[in-house]
């Protein structure tokens, strides 16, 4: 994988990797080192991203809520607006007592947080982080692999809820499973259009398909079906990561902390880590499917290495997640499922039709091009309005009378 025509920056990670591998003379060891370097790089980059996402989230929530957020932690007298907080948090989590309930299933109770982190890391293996950066770039069915691996993290939540032997945890794990089943479907269904357009299940193929002379306008999100797909994807991703407004498994107002109720210390931190890794990998998938992956928005900005573009888009997605959390209320369980089955799934199915139309009208020109856009937009908007009407029927602001 030589990158002679690319800029030095673009090839920089590869150069480092090749150099490190070349230090080792043995062939089989070289192969091992090559894969290990990739894994270590992902763990480091996303581990640090996790750490700083937690503090960014707390700072941003603070600002959303008219307060400062954490700003006390300092190292060697340096206080960078409290951005050393995650290190203090890590030390605290590691030194806290690990409490296991007497009636818990000890083995499962221990395994659940480990499984959570492990499963949530699997998704990173297939994400194309940059032009040449992907751990398993040669997997053809990368998308299928991603969903298979992503769904497994709910198993960890169920393990945690079941093994804790706590009623709140049990309710929470049941909720988590119901939520998984409800939201995996729209997530998959809106990924299909991108596959259809690219003609490939490979994530790299999907990203390459979004490149071209038009730059940012080639991204899937700037087509009618892509826009609808991105919104549905974002909502379903929120639910998939158990983030607000779909944080029902953790619904602290009724079931305390759900499956986390009986966890303390570093096990708790591992769940947190798993949740954030899941959020990052799903954001990465969203970026890949709809936001052009590592493509720069226009050719003039292509001098910035592709992996930085990917990372920037991923951060923007995560900031949107945080924004949602600061703004929205939690849905009820039945409403959550209704939203999925009666709104998102039908919309995603209609979206499949829209993308088929889009694909087979790719050669329409001139006035037909306008018609193509109008028809596609109508195919997106009309179901949205009609299904939305049904969904919110009977609801609305009220007029009040005065005595």
């Amino acid at each position, binding site marked *: 994988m030589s990158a002679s025509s690319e800029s030095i920056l673009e090839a920089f990670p590869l150069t480092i990797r090749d150099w490190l591998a070349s230090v080792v003379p043995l062939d089989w060891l070289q192969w091992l080192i090559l894969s290990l370097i990739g894994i270590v790089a992902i763990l480091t980059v996303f581990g640090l991203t996790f750490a700083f996402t937690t503090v960014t989230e707390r700072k941003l*929530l603070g600002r*959303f*809520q*008219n*307060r400062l957020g954490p700003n006390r932690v300092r190292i060697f007298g340096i206080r960078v607006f409290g951005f050393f907080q995650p290190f203090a948090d890590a030390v605290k989590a590691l030194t806290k007592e690990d409490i296991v309930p007497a009636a818990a299933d000890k083995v499962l109770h221990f395994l659940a947080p480990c499984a959570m982190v492990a499963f949530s890391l699997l998704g990173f293996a297939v994400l194309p982080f940059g032009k040449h950066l992907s751990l398993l770039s040669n997997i053809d069915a990368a998308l299928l692999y991603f969903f298979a691996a992503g769904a497994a993290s709910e198993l960890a939540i169920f393990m945690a809820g079941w093994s804790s032997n706590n*009623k*709140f945890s*049990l*309710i929470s794990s049941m909720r988590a499973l119901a939520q998984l089943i409800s939201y995996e479907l729209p997530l998959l269904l809106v990924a299909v259009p991108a596959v259809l357009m690219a003609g490939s299940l490979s994530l790299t193929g999907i990203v390459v398909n979004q490149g071209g002379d038009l730059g940012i306008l080639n991204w899937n999100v700037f087509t009618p079906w892509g826009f609808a797909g991105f919104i549905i994807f974002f909502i379903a991703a929120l639910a998939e990561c158990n983030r*607000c*407004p779909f*944080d*029902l498994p953790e*619904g*602290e*107002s*009724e*079931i*305390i902390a759900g499956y986390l109720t009986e966890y303390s210390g570093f096990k708790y931190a591992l769940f947190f880590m798993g949740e954030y890794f899941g959020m990052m990998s799903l954001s990465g998938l969203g970026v890949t499917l709809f936001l052009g992956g590592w493509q720069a928005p226009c050719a003039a900005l292509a001098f910035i290495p592709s992996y930085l573009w990917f990372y920037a888009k991923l951060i923007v997605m995560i900031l949107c997640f945080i924004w949602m*959390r*600061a*703004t*929205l*209320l*939690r*849905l*009820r*369980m*039945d*409403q959550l499922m*209704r*939203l999925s089955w*009666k709104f998102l799934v039908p919309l995603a199915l209609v979206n499949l039709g829209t993308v088929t139309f889009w694909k087979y009208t790719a050669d329409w020109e001139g006035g037909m091009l306008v018609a193509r856009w109008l028809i596609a937009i109508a195919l997106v908007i009309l179901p949205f309005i009609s299904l939305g009407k*049904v*969904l*919110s*029927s*009977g*609801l*609305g*602001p*009220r007029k*009040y*009378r*005065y*005595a």
Partner: protein
Amino acid sequence: MSLSEPIPGSTIRAVHDDFHGDLLEVSMGPHHPSTHGVFRMIVTLDGEVVVKLKPVFGYLHRNHEKLAENNAYLASIPYTDRLDYLCSLTNNWAYVHAVEKLSGIEVPERAEYLRVILGELTRLINHCCLVGFLLNDLGTSFTPLLYSLRERERMLDMIEALTGSRMMCNFMRFGGLRTDVSSEWLAQLKTYLDTTFARYLDEQDALLTGNEILLARTQGVGVLKSDLAINAGITGPMLRASGINYDIRKVDKYSIYDRFDFRVPLGDHSDTYDRYMMRMLEMHESVKIIQQAIKDIPEGPFIDPKAKNRGLRPKAGEAYARIEGPKGEIGFHLISDGTGNPYRYRVRPPSLINLTVLEDMCLGQTLADTVIILGSVDIVLGEVDR
């Protein structure tokens, strides 16, 4: 088909009968994030649907009534602060109102105006808290709560400037108030209500009242039928949310409430959303009352100089006096045997009586709904348990 559709308890029943599903009994509280204190609900769940709910309270019992029977009349005023610790001024007011009725003490004009101002300010504080905590129960990550608490802080600052205490005010006296109010304070309060607080109300309305998720979560949830509300003795915004026009400020016209122009909002759907909206609309009305009172307040004594506070010995007899507190009818029943402390002292706590219909509102709703229904009842455990 819609998000507002209530869960049909009967159909869920039938499905579960086929599976021979067990019921799950969950003890929520006394240590639980959303029971607003040490309140406990023993909830029996069928899946997520509540089939039985048993409230348990008394964890915060402090023997308030018996303590007052062994105290001089004056010494009970600071204790009443601690009943409903969010609205100490209305508690004070209800108590001194009862003692004044018992011993026939007159209240000067200026003191009545100041009592109305402070009482309505307390209502604003209470409703701010309620709206914030209710939205927190609905699953927002503290955002609306902190905005509400910011306004509450500002109002508490005003109250602190006047009474010296933020929550335990101990400010009302038999025949008036403890100190007078400066005109600067009144001007400051008026400016605050006209600008900052008005902005807060608009913001709340714009951002939350029409929010789709808020509507879906609260509309049609926790319906309290008006006949049940009457039979259970529900009062305050909860009763008015059930469509009953009963506001003691209008019914009794106690103090000088007949001089102010304000309206009483009424709900038609008796659900959690109506109870939320009652509070929002009442805040607008309270602001109107305070503005009128500040405009009309006369000069004069702030306490009847002849009124005896220390060593008060009312003639033998009994009196019940009530006012419209932020949570409902707060009343005190006093029996005097002519000595320096009451023979019998009884509080009518709106929180406790409004709480009695909790199970009726929660049956057939989901576990997540019980929390917001409880939140919309507006309880303070200090008053429930006394």
